[in-house]
Structure formats: structure tokens, C-alpha cells
């Protein structure tokens, strides 16, 4: 056991052991341990195999940001072992291994590295044949590539979403974030402070600092009720106008902040040398996190590579943890000796200035670090901590518009944000020292507060302690290679140098050619080194090279967090329960559920036939509630409809119903319906089910420009509609208690009446899609059931039958009535439909007028006509089958069906304009490829004189 006593191990509870397995072997840790810390505590340092060469890999950063420590859980791939807590009985296995982690058959790849140069895939898998990639190479590579395995039978988890609004959002609860959040909250602002770690403090929680600083800040924090602290919460992106997703476990906070302070800190950078990826080589921060968070001793004999104070502090921490520090190598040659230097010397640690780690060697199979070479001599050790520099955590700032630069004087990567509501604080803004970080947080809070209109005292600008120039490690390719720049993708120095030699000089191209920065760490440990290598190789500065674009998400996120809820959106008419009771076969039509026919599915054909006959010979009832219903009110209502529709409505008498046809500006038919004039200043207009939402929007869009005195109301859901149709329709309605005279003379075809039927207020229109005597009764949806029941009861002696959509479709087809969207397409003109009668020649303007005139001049090429197949014809073309003329397509079938009234199949189709005359024969190509000849019918198939609807 590598466990340390308290006070080390702030996250773990030693009284609660937790058992789990890794690669089938049992392990024990404590409550609060992460998978990686519990394994490290038991001496298991290898966590995974690398992506390309299958080299053993272990803890690098303890931040969960890289592929080294991704593991497989039973129902979750790519879990970050450094962040995922252990739970009793958890089964963990390694990823990207062929065989086992210990014996990986693909470890041989490490020997063949020189045969896998950068761009290998692009160069190799092109041939030999054009389809070789898809047929041969891709399946092989797919088996080899990828990390974890998805469990398609994983149990569903519940994810929820909530909204969060605040004055100031502070991302990162390190010293700078705490300083900012406390200052903003003490001034009275509503503050949210989030941090991905389970505790606040950032570096204060694991670094070598006086614990009193963090406890002091924490007690000020707790005294502020307007400061909401969200720990274990990842801020995974910045979107426009300060919209930020905060993810806490399975919950997504959609956060809108007025001001944002990004105190995202800095990312420690690894050193580049031969075998720099061996388990046992870790960043200084990783060693400190293991010690302070988890009470895990990171090794027995350590070498420390330190090019900054943090490295010296790490060495002191290692000593406190009982690790023997064999030597500290400081590559800086300067002979300045700070207090930390003296303290280490006092403890007898050998410090070698101007020296660095040149290479490392591993135990057999490279399973752990065995020794490092410094100044040409090999030193045996099992731990190397690396503290050679940081890069600011640029992801969120860059998403918020920040520009990355490079200061040649101090050798620092810098981030500059445009002036606005996003502010930087702390290490991400370049501060070095603890006090500077806290002060920088307070300054950011002051800037945010003044933008929010708080009266804030302008603090005297504290001069930060002099920022010392950063050490820059010279990156030279090792002759033996294995000097990794990108651990995720197994990229070495020479790979990047070769990419520049191949002509990929720009960073975005280098990234795409080599895949650098494309792995799970997204360049956190490789972007700066890559920029330096490319700068060196192309003779430019690091600032000129820059880094690749940072886009959301900042880190991986579970798809469940993004997914919406699973409820299917559906609409039911007010009469839905009645249809179900009548055993209707319901079908979805757009978002609506409508009866397809009534009765058993086995007798579908018979049921539809009977429903059609009922309408033709008796009386039928159709639920037309899904129709769009709009009310147009106001003194300009008539003028408004005149501009929108092709027919004349301003002169339409009150009590009359008129067909209305709508075009778009291109002159194409987009909708039709009827307009019933209820009063001089009031119309009731129907629209097709699918188009009403758009028609309603378009109406107000046009009027936003026209400024006519009208008001448009969408009554689609509020009103229901019943169509009573058939020769006996009048008899049925006349038996009902009503103040409406349904007689032919009092209520002629194409007129409308207001009144009550069976005590229900109704608007009745004499219109019909079926070609029979029809009354369409519209009433408030809340009363639709009573009206339906009354009509059904009154109709019973007359054999009234409710009919469904299929019967309705055939009934209208027998009359040659079109369905917008089915028999029209994006370029259909009224002329093509033979609707010249519906287009006013007198109106000076209506939408689409100019365009149909122009299109008429261009010449009409097709026309919608009826096609009547001979009785008993075997081969009937389906909808969308092509109409040919001289072998070339000129149109298509738009609707087809069997008419029981006529005893044969009928269809609507676009044919060549010269074939439009009655009796022309057109050729149609059936689904089976056969060509059939069909005669054209230029009038309604059934009741060509339209006498029946007007009785």
C-alpha cells in the first residue's frame, strides 16, 4: 500500500473501504477515491495502452483530461479514471488492448513504429482499387481503432435540464475565482461560482500553501447567501450572449450570465524527451494531487524536474510524503536561489542547475519508469515529476472571442479578450503568484460590477510582483524517437517535423495531417509544444503559428445531457375518443391522429367501400377538425384577403362562402381553402391542415408591411369541424333542433349560416370535398362531442356512417379535387391546375400576380388531368410514377385510387400541355418498368356536371 496518513487525503474517508475490480483483479480503495487514485494506492500504475503503439500508460495529470487514464466501465466507455469515483462492486477494465492490459498482443506495434510514419493512413489505404478503402481497409482499421466499447443495452439514465440566471458567473474556484466571486457577491451581485472539482480551492486544495488561506476564503464564501457554489460542475462551453452550459452529473444548467469571469487556470505542460510517456513520469501537479487529495505516495525514489517554483514545492511535498528525492534538476542556468531553493538544500536534496532530463528507460515491457538520464548519467528512480511550465486554459476564453498571442520577452502564451462582458482572472490571465491571482480576481469582479451599474470603489492598481520569464524547453527530436508530443495520438517530435517537411506549414493543416490535438485532451498537453515545433521548423515565431480553433464542448459530454425528452408530439381532435369507441383505425397525418377507416383492419377494403357508398347514396360524417381555421377581423378584412388570395373577396357578400387560392411570390400554389364572410368586417377562412401554421405566419408577415387594419386569429385548435355529406344530409340536419333553415332556397350552395344546432353554437358552410350535398358544421371544440353525438343520433334512422381519411381521399379523387402538396409541387401554377377561373383578372394586385403573368408568357409546359384506367386493368402505376412523352418524362402521377362508384382505377397526373385534351392517350411507366397507355379525362370522373352538390 502506498497510502499516507492524515492530514493527507482530503477527499477520502479511511473508515469506508470500497471494493472494486480492475481487469478482473480485486482492488480496495476508500470512499472518495477516484479509480486512478485507488489503483495507484495499491501499486497499479498502468491504466491503459496507447492508441497507436500500445505502450503502457499511467497517470499523467490527475485532471482526467487525457487518454492515458481513460477506462471502460460496464456501460460507459472512455470514463476518466482520474475523475470517476469508485463505488462498491464497480467493474473496471482497460481500453485499447488486444488481449489484456498486462499482455497486449498489439504491443508489437511499438517495434514497427518506423513503418507507421505520420500520414500513414492517408498514403497507404488509397488503393489498390477505388473501393479498397471501404471494402477492405476500413473494416480492419475500425476493429483496431477507437477506445472504449459502447454498451447498446445500457440501462436508461435520467437526465434533467434546468435554467440558471445570474449577474456574474465565475468559472473556476481557484484563488482567482474565489477572489472574484467573493468580491462580486460582497458588492451585492447575484453570483454563481462553478468548478469541475468536488471541492473549491483549485491549487489551494492540493498545492503547497498555508491551509489558512483556503479556510479563510471558504468562511467568507459561506457568509454570502447571494453566492451559489456549484462544485463537481463543468462549464463546457461559451456561446453567444453569455449562454453557458454547466453540467453537474446528469443535470444540465442552461446558464445565462450578464457578466462572466473566466478563472480557468493553467494547464501544466509535459516535457519532451525519449520515453517521456512511461508510467511513473507525471506532472508535478499530479503528484501533489495524489498526495493531498488521496493520500497516495506517488513513488519511492523520485527525480524532480523543476523549471519553476511549483517544481520546488512539489519536491518539498514529496519529502513530506516520505518519498526520497534523489535529485532535482533545474534546467534554468540562472544562479538566483530563492527561499524554496534554500529550504530544499537544507533538507539535503541535491539540486543540479542547468541540467534537464534527456531520456528515460523503463522496466521490461516499459511497464514503469526505471531510470532517467541527466547530464549524461543515468539515475535509478521510480518517479519523475515534471514542472517545466504552463499554458493558460484557453478553451473557454477562445470560444468567447479571445485571441491567443505569444509574448517573446517573457515566453508566455497570452490571451486577449475583446472589451465586453467576459473577463479573465488568475493564471489564465498570466498571473504567477497566489496574491496576484486573488487580486486579479478582485479586479475582474470590479470590472464586471461597474458594467452592471454597481458603484464600485476604483481600487488602486496593485502592481503585480514582477512576472519572471518562463523557461522554454528546447525541443529536439531524439534519434531514438518515442519523444511524445501528443500522448493521445502517439505523435513524436519527428512526426510533426515531417508534416512541415511535407508542406503542412499552417497549424490547422498540421493538426489535420498528423491528428495532433484531436484526441481526448484536445491539445491541452500538446498545443504549445506543437506551436513551438512548427515555429522552429518554419522559421516563424510561436505567436505567428498560434493554436488551432477551440470550439465547444470543452470536454467530453454524455449524449444524454444533450438529448431531449422522448415524448412524441401528437395532436388529437376533440372527437378522438368517439373515433376510438367506433373502432377507427387511427393514422398519423402530420402531427394529427385521424381515423383512416372505421372497423377491423382485416376488412379494410370492404369498410372503405361501404363508407364511400354511404356518402354517395345515403349520408356520411367526417371529422374535419384538423383543417386550419383562421378568423380575419377588421375594417380592411376584405382588402386583406384580396391581396393574399387570387379571388375577389372585398366584394363578397355577407353570408357567402368563396373558394380561396393562395400563391407565393413566385406564383406557385401554396394553399387553398374557403372564406366565409360572417360580417362586413369579419371572415372565417380555412387552410389546409399542413399549411395553416405557415399561412398564419405569412398573413401577419405581409401585414407587418401593409399595415392594414386587420387582426388575424388562429382558431385551429379552438374550433372543431364536422362534415355531414350525402344525398340525405339535409334530412339528417332538419331533424335536429336548430334555428337554421337548411332548405335549398334558404341555404344555397356556397353560402354560410350562423346559429345553433342541438344547442351548440355553430358556423355552417355549404361546401364539400365529396361532390355531394354537404354541410360543414364548425363549433367550439369544447362542444364538439355533443354536436357529434347529436348528429350521429339524428343520422341513425338514415343510415349515417362516419367515414375516414381513405374514403375521403377516394371521394375527392372521383371529383378530381386536388390536395395541395399532394397534387401540387413547388412550381405548380393555377393554370397548370386549370384554375384560371379562381384567379381574378380585375384585381390590380395579389401576391404572386406579377409572377404568374410572367410565367404565362414563358409558356405552360404541363397540365394536371384525370387518367381513367380500363376496368380490370392489371398494371396500375403508383403515385410519382413518370408520365412519358417520346420516351422523355414530362410529368408524374400525383394521386391514384380505385373508385367503387366507377368500378375502375382513376388518377390525377401532370401530362404534357399538348396532351391535356379529353381522349388523348398518355404513356405511364409503372413501378415494374412496364409502360401503359391511359386515356385522359378532362372533367370530374364522377358527376361531371357537378349537379349533386347543389341539390
Amino acid at each position: 500500500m502506498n497510502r499516507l496518513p492524515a492530514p493527507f487525503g482530503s477527499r477520502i474517508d479511511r473508515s469506508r473501504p470500497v471494493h472494486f475490480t480492475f481487469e478482473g483483479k480485486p482492488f480496495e480503495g476508500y470512499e472518495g477515491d477516484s479509480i486512478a487514485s485507488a489503483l495507484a494506492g495499491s501499486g497499479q500504475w498502468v491504466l491503459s495502452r496507447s492508441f497507436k503503439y500500445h505502450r503502457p500508460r499511467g497517470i499523467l495529470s490527475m485532471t482526467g483530461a487525457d487518454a492515458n487514464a481513460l477506462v471502460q466501465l460496464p456501460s460507459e466507455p472512455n470514463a476518466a479514471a482520474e475523475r470517476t469515483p469508485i463505488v462498491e462492486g464497480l467493474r473496471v477494465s482497460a481500453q485499447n488492448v488486444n488481449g489484456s492490459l498486462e499482455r497486449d498482443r498489439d504491443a508489437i506495434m511499438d517495434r514497427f513504429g518506423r513503418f507507421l510514419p505520420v500520414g500513414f493512413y492517408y498514403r497507404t489505404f488509397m488503393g489498390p482499387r477505388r473501393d479498397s478503402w471501404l471494402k477492405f481497409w476500413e473494416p480492419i482499421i475500425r476493429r483496431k481503432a477507437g477506445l472504449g466499447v459502447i454498451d447498446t443495452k445500457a440501462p436508461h439514465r435520467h437526465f434533467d435540464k434546468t435554467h440558471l440566471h445570474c449577474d456574474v458567473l465565475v468559472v473556476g474556484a481557484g484563488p482567482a475565482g474565489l477572489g472574484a466571486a467573493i468580491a462580486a457577491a460582497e458588492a451585492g451581485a447575484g453570483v454563481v461560482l462553478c468548478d469541475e472539482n468536488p471541492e473549491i480551492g483549485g491549487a489551494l486544495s492540493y498545492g503547497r500553501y498555508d491551509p489558512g488561506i483556503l479556510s479563510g476564503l471558504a468562511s467568507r464564501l459561506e457568509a454570502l447567501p447571494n453566492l451559489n457554489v456549484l462544485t463537481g460542475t463543468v462549464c463546457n462551453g461559451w456561446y453567444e450572449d453569455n449562454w453557458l452550459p454547466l453540467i453537474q452529473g446528469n443535470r444540465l444548467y442552461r446558464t445565462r450570465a450578464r457578466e462572466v469571469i473566466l478563472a480557468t487556470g493553467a494547464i501544466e505542460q509535459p516535457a519532451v524527451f525519449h520515453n517521456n510517456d512511461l508510467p511513473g513520469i507525471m506532472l508535478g501537479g499530479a503528484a501533489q494531487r495524489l498526495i493531498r487529495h488521496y493520500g497516495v505516495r506517488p513513488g519511492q525514489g523520485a527525480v524532480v524536474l523543476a523549471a519553476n517554483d511549483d517544481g520546488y514545492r512539489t519536491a518539498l511535498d514529496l519529502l513530506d510524503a516520505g518519498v526520497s528525492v534523489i535529485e532535482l534538476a533545474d534546467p534554468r542556468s540562472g544562479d538566483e536561489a530563492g527561499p524554496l531553493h534554500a529550504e530544499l538544500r537544507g533538507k539535503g536534496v541535491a539540486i543540479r542547475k542547468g541540467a534537464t532530463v534527456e531520456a528515460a528507460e523503463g522496466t521490461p515491457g516499459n511497464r514503469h519508469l526505471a531510470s532517467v538520464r541527466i547530464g549524461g548519467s543515468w539515475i535509478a528512480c521510480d518517479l519523475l515529476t515534471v514542472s517545466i511550465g504552463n499554458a493558460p486554459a484557453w478553451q473557454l476564453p477562445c470560444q468567447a472571442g479571445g485571441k491567443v498571442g505569444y509574448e517573446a520577452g517573457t515566453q508566455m502564451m497570452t490571451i486577449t479578450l475583446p472589451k465586453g462582458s467576459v473577463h479573465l482572472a488568475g493564471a489564465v490571465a498570466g498571473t504567477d503568484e497566489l496574491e496576484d491571482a486573488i487580486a486579479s480576481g478582485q479586479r475582474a469582479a470590479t470590472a464586471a460590477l461597474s458594467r452592471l451599474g454597481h458603484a464600485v470603489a476604483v481600487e488602486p492598481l496593485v502592481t503585480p510582483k514582477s512576472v519572471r520569464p518562463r523557461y522554454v524547453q528546447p525541443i529536439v527530436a531524439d534519434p531514438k524517437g518515442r519523444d511524445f508530443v501528443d500522448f493521445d495520438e502517439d505523435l513524436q517530435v519527428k512526426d510533426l517535423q515531417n508534416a512541415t517537411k511535407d508542406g503542412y506549414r499552417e497549424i490547422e493543416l498540421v493538426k489535420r495531417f498528423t491528428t495532433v490535438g484531436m484526441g481526448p485532451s484536445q491539445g491541452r498537453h500538446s498545443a504549445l509544444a506543437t506551436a513551438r515545433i512548427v515555429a522552429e521548423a518554419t522559421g516563424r515565431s510561436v505567436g505567428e503559428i498560434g493554436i488551432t480553433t477551440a470550439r465547444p464542448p470543452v470536454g467530453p459530454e454524455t449524449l444524454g445531457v444533450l438529448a431531449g425528452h422522448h415524448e412524441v408530439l401528437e395532436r388529437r381532435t376533440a372527437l378522438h375518443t368517439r373515433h376510438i369507441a367506433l373502432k377507427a383505425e387511427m393514422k398519423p397525418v402530420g402531427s394529427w391522429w385521424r381515423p383512416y377507416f372505421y372497423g377491423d383492419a382485416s376488412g379494410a377494403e370492404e369498410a372503405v367501400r361501404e363508407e364511400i357508398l354511404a356518402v354517395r347514396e345515403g349520408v356520411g360524417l367526417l371529422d374535419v377538425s384538423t383543417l386550419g381555421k383562421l378568423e380575419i377581423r377588421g375594417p380592411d378584412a376584405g382588402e386583406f384577403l384580396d391581396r393574399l388570395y387570387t379571388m375577389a373577396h372585398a366584394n363578397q357578400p355577407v353570408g357567402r362562402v368563396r373558394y380561396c387560392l393562395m400563391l407565393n411570390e413566385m406564383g406557385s400554389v401554396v394553399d387553398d381553402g374557403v372564406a366565409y364572410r360572417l360580417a362586413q368586417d369579419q371572415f372565417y377562412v380555412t387552410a389546409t391542415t399542413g399549411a395553416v401554421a405557415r399561412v398564419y405566419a405569412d398573413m401577419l408577415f405581409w401585414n407587418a408591411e401593409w399595415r392594414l387594419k386587420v387582426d388575424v386569429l388562429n382558431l385551429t385548435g379552438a374550433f372543431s369541424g364536422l362534415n355531414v355529406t350525402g344525398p340525405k344530409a339535409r334530412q339528417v340536419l332538419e331533424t335536429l333542433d336548430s334555428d337554421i333553415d337548411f332548405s335549398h332556397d334558404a341555404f344555397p350552395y356556397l353560402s354560410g349560416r350562423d346559429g345553433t344546432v342541438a344547442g351548440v353554437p355553430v358556423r355552417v358552410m355549404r361546401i364539400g370535398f365529396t361532390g355531394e350535398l354537404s354541410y360543414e358544421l364548425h363549433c367550439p371544440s369544447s362542444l364538439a362531442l355533443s354536436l357529434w353525438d347529436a348528429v350521429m343520433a339524428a343520422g341513425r334512422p338514415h343510415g349515417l356512417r362516419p367515414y375516414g381519411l381513405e374514403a375521403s381521399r377516394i371521394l375527392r379523387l372521383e371529383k378530381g379535387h386536388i390536395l395541395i402538396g399532394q397534387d401540387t409541387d413547388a412550381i405548380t401554377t393555377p393554370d397548370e391546375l386549370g384554375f384560371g377561373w379562381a384567379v381574378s383578372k380585375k384585381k390590380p394586385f395579389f401576391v404572386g400576380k406579377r409572377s404568374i403573368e410572367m410565367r404565362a408568357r414563358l409558356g405552360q409546359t404541363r397540365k394536371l388531368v384525370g387518367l381513367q384506367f380500363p376496368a380490370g386493368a392489371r398494371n396500375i402505376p403508383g403515385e410519382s410514377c413518370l408520365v412519358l412523352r417520346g420516351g422523355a418524362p414530362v410529368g408524374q402521377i400525383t394521386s391514384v385510387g380505385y373508385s367503387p362508384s366507377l368500378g375502375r382505377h382513376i388518377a390525377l397526373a401532370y401530362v404534357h400541355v399538348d396532351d391535356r385534351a379529353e381522349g388523348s392517350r398518355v404513356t405511364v411507366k409503372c413501378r415494374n418498368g412496364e409502360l401503359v397507355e391511359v386515356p385522359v379525362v378532362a372533367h370530374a370522373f364522377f358527376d361531371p356536371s357537378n349537379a349533386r352538390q347543389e341539390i
Partner: protein
Amino acid sequence: MKLLTCPMNGPRNIDEFQSFGPVRAKLDPDGTADTDWSRHLFRAENRKGIVVEWWRHVPSNYFFLAERDLVSNEIIRTFDASELRDLA
């Protein structure tokens, strides 16, 4: 997510809105040649700079105008359509 300030409903998430495109020059239908009319229908200018666009707040079906910088995507101001005549 971007915010758009509706003159009637105040600042709302932009996914509550639908864009209806830039305000186009009004042409006299009868005084315009066919080629110019086609161009008017099908050709979008999409020039760098500031445009005035129609927007719809979907839940309230309210149409209004917004001045937007096509380069920075900054919405400079929003206003009711009654002001359009003053602009023209």
C-alpha cells in the same frame, strides 16, 4: 445561445424567433421588367455590412425589424414595423 430583444416581449433566446430575411426594396410590379423581377425574387445580396431584417417571435406571431451587422453578428437594435415607413 444568442439573445434577441423583441420590441414586444423583451429579450428572449433566439430559438424563439424565425428569420424572414432582409427587408427588400419594393418594386412596382407593373413597372419592372421580367429579368429584374426574377432577380428581385431569387437573388440575395448578402453584402458585408448592416442589414435590416424581418424577424418573427414565433409564440406570439409578432413581426418586427432588427438591424444586424453581418460581419460581427451584433444585433444593433430592434424596432416595430411601424417605423419602417419612417425609414423608407
